[in-house]
């Protein structure tokens, strides 16, 4: 295979406890640490391993987001992506729009494989991968925990509710990375220096000719109601009594 495209989303870091804005207009993201979506790191790692095994020649990282998303693309380049593309926008982009924009990039780049994370940890939508596969009219494999390349076919192990499912998909295809697909590498300092010289193209979103208006209008963002405060029990006897009282054991 020649080229692998990897989706990289800039998200609020995994360790940040987000706060809902008091006016209900969204969550406060100003001054908050931003990172590459962890599932996208796994997606990229898989692409890099495929290339390092000699089964692909080029890995291209693609992001859709604000100018600052260049930071996340530089991280992707430092991990080992050959080049990067940023579709620049300051507007919120919903998954269907992201898939349509990715399709435009796919048409230009003609990859054999697209790898994305199974979900982004900000909106938790888990839609962009399968939506892109649908629009591209190609095969999809979501929640991948193992990917094996056999000529023009991928043999995929998927993490499904029942256990583990094996399917075969013909290339080109879109696959989404689950947690246990691999463990992404750490970026080393010399790689960060090298990444600064790698090509990063910034494309204005308008140039792709996709309608980017939100289909779903956010009306209100609110914090969940906290659970009522519980009690500490001193030993097993007290715990069992409490559960018996509630009829739970």
């Amino acid at each position: 295979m020649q080229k692998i495209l990897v989706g990289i989303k800039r998200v609020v870091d995994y360790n940040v406890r987000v706060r809902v804005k008091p006016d209900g207009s969204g969550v406060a993201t100003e001054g908050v640490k931003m990172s590459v979506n962890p599932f996208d790191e796994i997606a990229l790692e898989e692409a890099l391993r495929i290339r390092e095994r000699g089964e692909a020649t080029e890995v291209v990282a693609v992001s859709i987001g604000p100018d600052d998303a260049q930071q996340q693309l530089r991280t992707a380049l430092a991990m080992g992506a050959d080049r990067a593309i940023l579709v620049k926008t300051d507007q919120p982009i919903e998954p269907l729009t992201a898939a349509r924009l990715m399709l435009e990039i796919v048409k230009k780049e003609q990859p054999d494989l697209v790898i994305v994370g199974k979900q982004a940890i900000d909106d938790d939508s888990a839609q962009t991968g399968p939506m892109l596969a649908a629009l591209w009219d190609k095969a999809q494999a979501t929640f991948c925990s193992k990917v094996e390349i056999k000529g023009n076919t991928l043999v995929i192990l998927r993490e499904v509710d029942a256990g583990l499912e094996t399917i075969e998909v013909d290339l080109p295809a879109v696959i989404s990375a689950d947690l246990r697909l691999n463990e992404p590498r750490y970026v080393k300092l010399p790689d960060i220096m090298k990444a600064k010289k790698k090509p990063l193209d910034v494309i204005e979103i308008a140039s792709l000719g996709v309608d980017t208006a939100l289909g779903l209008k956010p009306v209100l963002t609110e914090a969940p109601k906290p659970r009522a405060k519980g009690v500490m029990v001193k030993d097993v006897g007290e715990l069992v009594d409490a559960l018996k009282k509630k009829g739970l054991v």
Partner: protein
Amino acid sequence: MSKILVIAEHDGEKLAQATARSVTCAAQIPGGEITVVVFAADPAAVATQAAALKGVSRVITVAAPHNGQALAAILAPQVVKLAAGYTHVFGASTTFGKDLMPRVAALLGVPQISDCMAVEGAHKFKRPTYAGNALVTLEAPSDRIVVATVRTASFDAAATGGAASVEAVTVEVALPSHTRFVSVQAAKSDRPELTSAAKVVSGGRALASKDNFQLIFSLAEKMGAAVGASRAAVDAGYAANELQVGQTGKIIAPDLYVAVGISGAIQHLTGIKDAKTIVAINKDAEAPIFEVADFGLVGDLFEVLPKLEAALAG
């Protein structure tokens, strides 16, 4: 009037409880009429179960050899063809629904509402974001079909006792050959299923080995509970992937959840916050799991679990 198409999830014999929960969500749409569609090689048994769900007015079956396994690429074009005439298409937010529904939505050219947790109108829905730390109410365009996945932990299963009509249909549509089912390795067990169990016992990293994790299975057996695990326990290989509870695993709402040796990262808590009663057993008194626990016990799980089992046996 709203016409809602609910995609049945099943293993060829049994309708998933996730579908009964999706029907409850669909029934909250004002003035809605619910149709359940069963794709299968032989849909008879599943169709009978779907027809018995209260609130369902019609079941349609699409029997075909290629529907013997649930492949999104095969099912999506059929769902799209059937969707004409409906105002809503719902599937459960399970790995089945998360695989299929976005493909359906994209082919229909509409955005999808993932993990619907509350219906606030025919086109207004609430869903969790940021691992459940921010709830967003979204309004979908009223002139387009609505595609949504249902957060099953937010809805009870629809009661049985209904008697909907069952009707076989054929769907003429070109299907791709690029995707093929090979096999599924399903963990066979007599224990209750994790997402529908009334009681769940979950183990975390503190179990420290796959052998020790047997303590969780043993307690679960004594309690008639399903077994769950934290991501840390699954990543470490102590428990199978399908047992993972949390943001990126299963979202559950049992009557009783017992968290053993689980610290309680927000990503885990989002998977259990709808549990009616949460018990936490952890040796770290500062563990965040105690912030959400109804009953907390600070102690070494290797001392607590044998005592707990003995107390439950007595």
